[in-house]
């Protein structure tokens, strides 16, 4: 039986979350959000210009979406905390995706600093969605620090390699009571479906949609794959077998 995704007490309409970076234009980004029916969209605060004479990205996000600012550019907990507070001051609300990335080559997150930022921001009333390497002990620390969900990576950002961390994701999904949202590395709709089939609460995609030849079509494809994967998970699919099996190898003679 399908259940509603709820994060921090708020019902979320879609299990497909969309990042807003890397699109060829804000108009295409807007059309992709609409085509995917995403309810939660992430926006890098560094891209929001309060003094903009140019187009403002926020004007292109449908009003019924939840804007989740992210702390892209933060190298440590202190910078992430400052960016989160700035996001709130600029009217971006309380949803914050914490990204602490001290490594510009592989773009891998720093779990220890992310936990530290989560502790502070959760106490300040933020709905904290931390982006992390999938580590069970750290996921428990984040849960205890007040995170609203855990967002482990499937593969390094932008690589489109899919669920390279599949076995670790399965452990987090099994052990952490919070929604587990697979973020980063999902490069094909089939990867998104696979994440949902193993029980992820949602997936977040950006590069694979924004950098495709047709981002609007790609957004829809991922959204459909997420929905299909979720239905597959809820339906309780039969396990995958190592070798072929006839339907009744031992008792067929009885018919």
């Amino acid at each position, binding site marked *: 039986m399908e259940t509603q995704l709820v994060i921090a007490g708020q019902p979320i309409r879609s299990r497909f979350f969309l990042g807003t970076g890397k699109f060829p234009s804000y108009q295409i980004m807007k059309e992709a959000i609409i085509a995917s029916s995403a309810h939660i969209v992430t926006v890098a605060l*560094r891209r*929001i210009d309060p003094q903009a004479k140019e187009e403002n990205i926020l004007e292109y996000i449908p009003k019924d979406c939840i804007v989740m600012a992210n702390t892209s550019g933060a190298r440590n907990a202190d910078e992430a905390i400052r960016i989160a507070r700035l996001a709130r001051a600029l009217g971006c609300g309380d949803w914050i995706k914490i990204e602490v990335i001290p490594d510009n080559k592989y773009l891998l997150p720093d779990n220890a600093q992310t936990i530290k930022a989560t502790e502070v921001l959760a106490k300040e009333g933020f709905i904290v969605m931390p982006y992390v390497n999938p580590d069970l002990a750290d996921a428990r620390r984040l849960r205890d620090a007040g995170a609203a969900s855990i967002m482990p990576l499937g593969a390094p950002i932008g690589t489109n390699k899919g669920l390279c961390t599949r076995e670790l994701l399965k452990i987090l999904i099994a052990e952490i009571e919070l929604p587990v949202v697979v973020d980063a590395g999902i490069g094909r709709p089939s990867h998104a479906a696979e994440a949902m089939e193993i029980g992820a609460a949602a997936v977040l995609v950006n590069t694979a949609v924004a950098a495709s030849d047709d981002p609007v079509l790609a957004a829809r494809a991922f959204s459909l794959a997420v929905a299909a994967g979720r239905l597959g998970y809820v339906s309780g699919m039969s396990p995958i077998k190592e070798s072929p099996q006839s339907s009744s190898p031992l008792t067929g003679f009885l018919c």
Partner: protein
Amino acid sequence: MPITFYDQIVKFSRFDFEDFFRQAAPKDVERVMDKEALSENDFLLLLSEAAFGSLELLAQKARRITWGNFGKVIQLYAPLYLSNYCVNDCAYCGFKHSNPITRKCLSIAELKEEAKEIAKSGIRHVLLLTGESRSQAPLAYIKECVILLKKSFSMISVEIYPLSVNEYAELIAAGVSGLTIYQETYDERLYSQLHRQGPKSDYRFRLMAPERAAQAGMRQINIGALLGLSEFKKEVFFTGLHGYWLERYYPGIEVGVSFPRIQPQVGNFSPANPLSDRQLAQAIVATRIFLPHAGITLSTREAKELRSNLIGLGLTRLSAGSRTQVGGYALSDKTEGQFEIADTSSVDAVRHMVHQKGYQPVFHDWLNVI
């Protein structure tokens, strides 16, 4: 771990580049095409004449990598020349000490005029430039400029004389996020021939400036060689190696690479090794494949049409509406420019061109939270 990048360069002092290039074959290049992470030798192969015939395939690979790591986005910035006083006498530079040009250092009132004019165009990232004169444009003056400009711009970078770690830290505290510093040539012998006098004659001090800035906590560091001084394959190779080294030992910084080609300037310096547009494209795509996460900048030194065509090959940053004179944006008593600008398009025209190419022009992509 080598102590500095200089140690890395020394490793190649006996490497026979000519022999390597002679032996490089198209089949070697094909093998590199399938690799995800390139070795130093692979990078050199992509810069060789053996790769010339595979340029289209290399360009397609470079484009895919850029889309994956940066998306279809081009950041725009503008240079702002603060001062053209210079104690060095670099053979190729319009600002060299011996050139009989008008010298000027912007007053704070003049800087406000310049900033106002640049900000009007929508530009939010400025690159501050000076010649090397600690007496005419001292660090205290540059810091004062930065503090003033912070009110109008979201990102401030500098392209000034090399500093110590502590001095870079002072600039960062004032509000600087990025450093651009070109080694001009990585060939130490040629370097000493071209920089015979002044503090710039110290090859190692300049070479290690990016490391000092990284140690001070600089966020974005942009390097490059002045293309045309020496054989481009080796210069681009060492630039790429420099970027790789910085990424490896200072993972917190965003490394960028520029490809400045020598343009005509006062003094009529003729480059000994001019490179063609096709060679410039090869340099850009090879660098993109070797350094998938590095920002790549092409300035208005290059013509509008070429810049437009190279966008899809790996560029991530363009200057726009540039003036290379001190006072070039708003003042009537502007100086001569440092070099001739080939793309004289307005910021609006560059924005339009980027849109036309199917990319998003981005003016604001930075938060200074230090």
